């Protein structure tokens, strides 16, 4: 990923570049590979950028514009590096080009909002007027609504949940039924949207105080609490109804139970006891079980194993993430292991990394996969266990980050390997026929 630095002179900057910066929710801003612009003094300036899934920030410090390629991830920055960072401001969201060929529409220009936190007491008049400009009318704009609802329902997390449910469905030892699969995925997605919206509805003042969550729609007043609840109801009720009537009642019951567990148990418990992490792990384990029961209609050992794998995965994932958020959790009143019982936090993460190895070995015993699965998945699980061990031993920010980022690619890869090693139905049928065939012959001989 590279981006050539633009020339810093003010004249060149006077309306030159298009930098599509913000990726809000699922709205993909079209990115341009190469942008050729003409500076006022006739020079040609080019820059290239790749804008995959990253945000690019332009920050200003003492009139110098500098570009940060990696996002300043708030969760990781030490809370005490105060001097430089306070004075840096996120100044520009969109700089539209002013060339004869490309006239930006007025609506885009309106979007330029200085989101800076003006903490500079040395210039009161401009600070005040800047603050005044940050006041917004609380009006719901219809074209903003999809993005707002996407963020309200935590659409990326929902997509992950639906993919784990699909994995559960795919691993079930029954012929693949596409309509059932689609209904189950849709129902699970709607249920997840509902649960996430209610979670955000409950947590507005807490989210405002944490860096990671302070830009959520309810915190920013982009949507009213009433509308958030209505949206949750309009997702949850059809979702559960779809699962109960379109798939089977067991899956519907699991979905409803999961919503209840997440909104009424996990969310309040976050502020009461560290046991919330275990409850949250169960919440994460239920979707693949739902996928399995959607396919088979019953709660088999295979479903529980898949749920077990997801349950164990939650611990290295969440414990590593929470390690860098200890200050925010402490200030906000969240009871997390990383704050109150740091040693337990690291031990549990390591324990469950190792448990993954054991669970993957049980899969062929239960006839879900072939024996190649534990063999191929062993390097993956050993690697994450190694990082878990490093986290346990070193207990610092870098080891926690490594473990967290590993968990992000470990799970999809593990599920993919599991699917590719799935025991094919043909093999099972042949084995079943061989057994029943001999039984049939014995009966034939008996009859006259």
């Amino acid at each position, binding site marked *: 990923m590279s981006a050539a630095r633009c020339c810093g002179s003010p004249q060149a900057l006077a309306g030159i570049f298009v930098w599509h910066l913000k990726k809000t929710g699922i709205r993909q801003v079209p990115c341009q590979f190469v942008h050729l612009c003409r500076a006022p003094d006739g020079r040609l300036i080019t820059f290239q950028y790749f804008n995959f899934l990253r945000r690019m920030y332009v920050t200003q410090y003492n009139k110098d514009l500098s570009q940060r390629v990696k996002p300043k991830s708030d969760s990781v920055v030490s809370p005490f590096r105060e001097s430089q960072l306070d004075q840096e401001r996120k100044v520009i969201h969109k700089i539209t080009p002013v060339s004869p060929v490309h006239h930006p529409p007025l609506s885009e220009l309106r979007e330029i909002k200085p989101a800076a936190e003006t903490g500079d007491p040395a210039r009161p008049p401009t600070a005040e007027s800047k603050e005044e400009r940050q*006041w917004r*009318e609380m009006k719901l704009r219809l074209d903003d609504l999809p993005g707002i609802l996407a963020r309200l329902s935590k659409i990326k997390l929902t997509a992950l949940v639906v993919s784990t449910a699909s994995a559960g469905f795919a691993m079930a030892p029954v012929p693949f039924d596409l309509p059932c699969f689609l209904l189950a995925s849709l129902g699970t997605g709607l249920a997840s949207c509902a649960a996430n919206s209610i979670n955000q509805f*409950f947590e507005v*003042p807490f989210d405002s105080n944490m860096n990671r969550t302070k830009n959520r729609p309810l915190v920013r007043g982009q949507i009213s*609490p009433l509308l958030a609840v209505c949206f949750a109801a309009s997702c949850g009720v059809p979702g559960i109804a779809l699962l109960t009537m379109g798939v089977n009642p067991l899956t519907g019951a699991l979905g409803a139970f999961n919503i209840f567990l997440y909104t009424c148990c996990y969310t309040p418990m976050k502020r009461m006891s560290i046991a919330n992490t275990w409850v949250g792990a169960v919440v994460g384990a239920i979707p693949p079980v739902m996928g399995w029961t959607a396919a088979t209609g019953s709660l088999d050992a295979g479903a529980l194993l898949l749920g077990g794998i997801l349950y164990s995965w939650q611990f290295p994932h969440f414990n590593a993430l929470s390690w860098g958020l200890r200050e925010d959790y402490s200030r906000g*009143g969240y*009871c997390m292991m990383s704050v109150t019982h740091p040693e337990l936090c690291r031990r549990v993460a390591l324990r469950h990394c190792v448990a993954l190895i054991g669970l993957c070995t049980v899969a062929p015993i239960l006839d879900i996969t072939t024996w190649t699965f534990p063999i191929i998945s062993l390097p993956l699980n050993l690697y994450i266990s190694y990082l878990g061990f490093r986290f346990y031993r070193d207990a610092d920010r870098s080891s926690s980050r490594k473990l967290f980022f590993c968990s992000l690619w470990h799970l999809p890869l593990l599920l993919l390997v599991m699917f590719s090693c799935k025991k094919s139905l043909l093999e099972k049928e042949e084995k079943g026929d061989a057994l029943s065939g001999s039984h049939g012959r014995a009966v034939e001989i008996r009859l006259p």
Partner: protein
Amino acid sequence: MAAVGAARALRAGGCRYSRFSSSFSSGGGERAGPRFRPPAGSRRDWIGPPDKRSNLRPVIFHVPPHESPLERRLRELREETQAWNQSFWARQNTAFQREKEEFIYSRLKARGLEARDETGQKVTLSAEEMADFYKDFLRKNFRKHMRYNRDWYKRNFTITFLMGQVALVRALRWLRWRSTNAGNQ
């Protein structure tokens, strides 16, 4: 707490411009409410940038000309909740900052170091050393948070329920108006 003076004056004068009220105060009596005044013709609430002490965004509520008792109750509850939230979080965050500074100072002193190094920058402790402080702060404030959580959930539910009632009443009123209009035509 309330910065409704201007709004009340306007109301008394029978002004036809929109009225706004807010109970937001940055605390400590420094200023009696946000200095921002919404544009006169606006009929909606306005939300501002996060407050520096509480990190909560203040809202200036619009007072409609024929406010029903239900709507008034909702608005006053929202204003009161806003002020209550503001005071809790401002106090909480200030206490956190202050105790953090004291902790760092005491730890540095125990090690024989100064609070600032040669360049004048503040000396910081590593995240691991701060972990003791975080654990302690959380434990000390646990009961306060429990009380706050309970009250916050109650208020949140009540406000949302009232909003639902107000929305329903308005919808019925609009339907009645439409049916009478359709009848007249």
